[in-house]
């Protein structure tokens, strides 16, 4: 059995790739970049990941195109496919890689989304995952029938009720042709429907559930329902503290530590020597924070047109608008949407103290530095340490250059991991659940649903 093999070998590094589809980390101006829209790129990448024995390929999703000062944000890669549609297409041309769709629990109908996810899971032979996200703003809701219906602080209550309803539907699926699913009636305060599921359980029973929220509500949802946590804590001690917190929460829901895998997001720059890796990392950062992006970054906070300023000159001398970050939409993390004036003051202090230009300041404060930069051996050593200390179970890699930044990991880092005994040399199973070495679901997938 795959699980015993896994135990015998000790902790293993599990790798996924998170294709965000938008954002500054994806470099598009380099001639080596593949198209970010064409299906051929996705086919190439997923087949590459299978060669590298990765667990999963993730698609990000956001339900409104990002904007800056009232116009669509024009500097970053943008334009994404519907995740389930795209992954269903990829299921036909891959046979092992897990296929994970980011889908929103605020602006979907539970029975509709549960059925589409179950369909992806079934047609891929048990390789689907659902990265559960919520929407925190009514701005995104303007694309939906009932925009802004859910108060921000209740978004995880809705997500929890949604996930529980989806699990009930998946458990009640028909065994096959002619049997029919058991109708499910859900009447909770934020979810209400009656539906008979039509999709039989896949070989892994149901889609694997991923959760990324880091607030208390997000962590509780993860502890209750997630199979994989897509965490933000990459630095070793922070990751260890997070793992401790999550495991203590798991115990409260009667779950074992090995029922959840922790895969923080990470960006990786590989070089044949340390110097080469660092040089490459500097190039990546300078592509990600070019002049126009640096100006736009500040515009989001200033709330004013700063296009007249030189990115290589000093910070804008005009005062920012006094309103909070209202004109910029979808590009700024929620915790940064208040207190911007103090933030701008601190930037001015930092720039004055260190003599930084606009671009140098943005390079400093905008985040997005590579998480791991080094030789294949150095990175493999670090990752082996992370998993052996149980700080993480692996990483969700966000590529900066498609496909070359992934080819580097597969061709150079994976063999080093294998040499250290922390990475598979072949797929042991066929389902995403098996790749992640998660224990089988407690309820046998094909058993008839017990009448309650």
């Amino acid at each position, binding site marked *: 059995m795959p699980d015993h093999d896994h135990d015998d070998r000790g902790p293993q590094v599990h790798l996924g790739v998170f294709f965000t589809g938008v954002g500054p980390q994806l470099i*598009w*101006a380099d001639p080596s970049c593949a198209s970010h*829209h*064409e*299906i051929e790129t996705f086919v190439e990448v997923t087949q590459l990941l299978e060669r590298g024995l990765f667990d999963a390929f993730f698609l990000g*999703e*956001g*339900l409104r*195109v990002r904007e800056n000062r009232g*116009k*669509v944000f*024009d*500097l970053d*890669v*943008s*334009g*994404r*496919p*519907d995740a*389930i*549609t*795209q992954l*269903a*297409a990829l*299921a*036909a*041309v891959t046979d092992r890689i897990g296929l994970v769709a980011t889908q929103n629990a605020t*602006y*979907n*109908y539970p*029975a*509709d989304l549960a059925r*589409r996810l179950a*369909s992806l899971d*079934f*047609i891929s*032979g048990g390789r689907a995952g659902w990265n559960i996200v919520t929407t925190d703003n009514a701005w995104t809701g303007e*694309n*939906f*029938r*009932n*925009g802004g219906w859910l108060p921000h602080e209740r978004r995880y209550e809705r997500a929890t009720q949604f996930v529980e309803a989806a699990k009930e539907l998946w458990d009640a699926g*028909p065994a*096959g*042709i*002619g049997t*029919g*699913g058991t109708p499910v009636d859900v009447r909770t305060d934020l*979810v209400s*429907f*009656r*539906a*008979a599921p*039509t*999709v*039989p359980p896949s070989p892994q029973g149901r889609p694997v559930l991923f959760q990324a929220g880091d607030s208390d509500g997000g962590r509780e949802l993860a502890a209750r329902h997630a199979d994989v946590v897509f965490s933000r804590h990459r630095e070793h001690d922070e990751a260890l503290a997070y793992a401790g917190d999550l495991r203590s929460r798991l115990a409260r829901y009667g779950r074992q530590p090995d029922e959840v895998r922790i895969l923080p997001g990470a960006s990786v720059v590989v070089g044949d020597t340390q110097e080469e890796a660092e040089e490459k990392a500097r190039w990546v950062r300078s592509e990600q924070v*070019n*002049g*126009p*992006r640096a100006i736009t970054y500040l515009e989001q906070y200033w709330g004013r047109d700063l296009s007249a300023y030189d990115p290589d000159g000093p910070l804008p001398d005009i005062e920012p608008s006094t309103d909070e970050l209202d004109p910029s939409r979808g590009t700024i993390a929620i915790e940064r949407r208040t207190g911007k004036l103090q933030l701008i003051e601190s930037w001015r202090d930092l720039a004055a103290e260190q003599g930084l230009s606009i671009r140098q300041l943005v390079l400093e404060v905008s985040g997005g530095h590579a998480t791991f930069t080094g030789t294949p051996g150095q990175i493999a050593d670090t990752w082996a340490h992370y998993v052996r200390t149980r700080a993480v179970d692996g990483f969700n890699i966000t590529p900066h250059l498609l496909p070359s930044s992934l080819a580097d990991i597969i061709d150079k880092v994976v063999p080093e991991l294998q040499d250290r005994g922390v990475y598979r040399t072949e797929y042991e199973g066929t389902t995403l659940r098996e790749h992640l070495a998660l224990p089988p679901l407690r309820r046998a997938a094909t058993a008839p649903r017990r009448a309650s």
Partner: protein
Amino acid sequence: MTTGRLLLAVEADGAGAHPAAWRFPDASGTMLDPRSIKETVTAAEWAGFAFAAFGDGPTPPPAGARIEAGVRAAYLSQLTRCIGLAPTLHVTTTEPFHLATQLASLDHASHGRAAWVLDAANDGPARATIGAAPLDDATRSQEVRDVIDVTRALWDSWEDDAVIKDVATGRFLDNDKVHHIRFEGPSFSVVGPLITPRPPQGQVVIIAADSLGVADRADITLVGGFSAVTGHGRQALSRRAERAREAGSPLVFAELEVALDQPGERAARRLQRLNPLGFWHMTDRARFVGSVAALTEFLAGLAAHVDGVLFYPAQTAVDFPILADNVLPALTSSGLARVPDPDDATLRDVLGLPRPVNRFAEPARATNSVRSAASA
């Protein structure tokens, strides 16, 4: 006017149109096994069908089990090369924004072969799947129109040349060419733009039954009529086709359920065997039961009234191979069928439908390009 040559399409990925079709062992594979779905649709592609339709609904079919149609179509997009892929998606049980995104994505994944069989399930159990009650007729009609209008506007919300990748200015896209649509209707509003760039076909092909009242908005309107085989039935069908055309539908297809004679058993006799297991009530589609020769003759008569036929085999395992191996070659050799040409890049090309101009593209720019072409 029709061309006199029929475009042919088939719904062939389930057990069949007959409610008892799933009870036969050779049918079960075609419903849930991805490999046999692939085999059937590949066979349809080889035979020369213009598109394959994928039936679906929010409530269970007679067989109980079914994979969501959009997922099936997307899966097949990588396994086929020229056949159109037309999943049924209901406007009454999901979000218009998601429908537009899913269909645009299918069109991208298939390089311009997506179509949408639009439906609007409105019975109690269907609407209960979203915790809602059935809509009254007027509201449902309004909803169908509004969802089409929103979807079409969203497909135009990115102009074809919105992605510019201009290294000098650092701009990935030209944000003057990505538009809010700001749709406001009585039951919902959508700001846009779509999260997905414009589909390769510009607009995904929309297929809707005439009973939905959107012949003015659809690319293909489906018409039926009881017992179309009789002279009277054919008249009713041709009247409906005429009305759809007058309303503005560029193409009109007949929906035709078929049960065909096979060596050793006539279709009528087969139905006598099947009906006790689940009676095949007449539907709004036309129905043909008989021999290949009689069907060919019937279709020859139909070609003056409609542009194409969407077949629903009574039993996929029995009737689909007869359609693919006998009916279609007979029609092609007698010049009655129009099969896809190797030069057709998209489903619109196969159907002879132009690629629509984007409503947001500035006429000034179009004029300029005409002028520069003229002066070149």
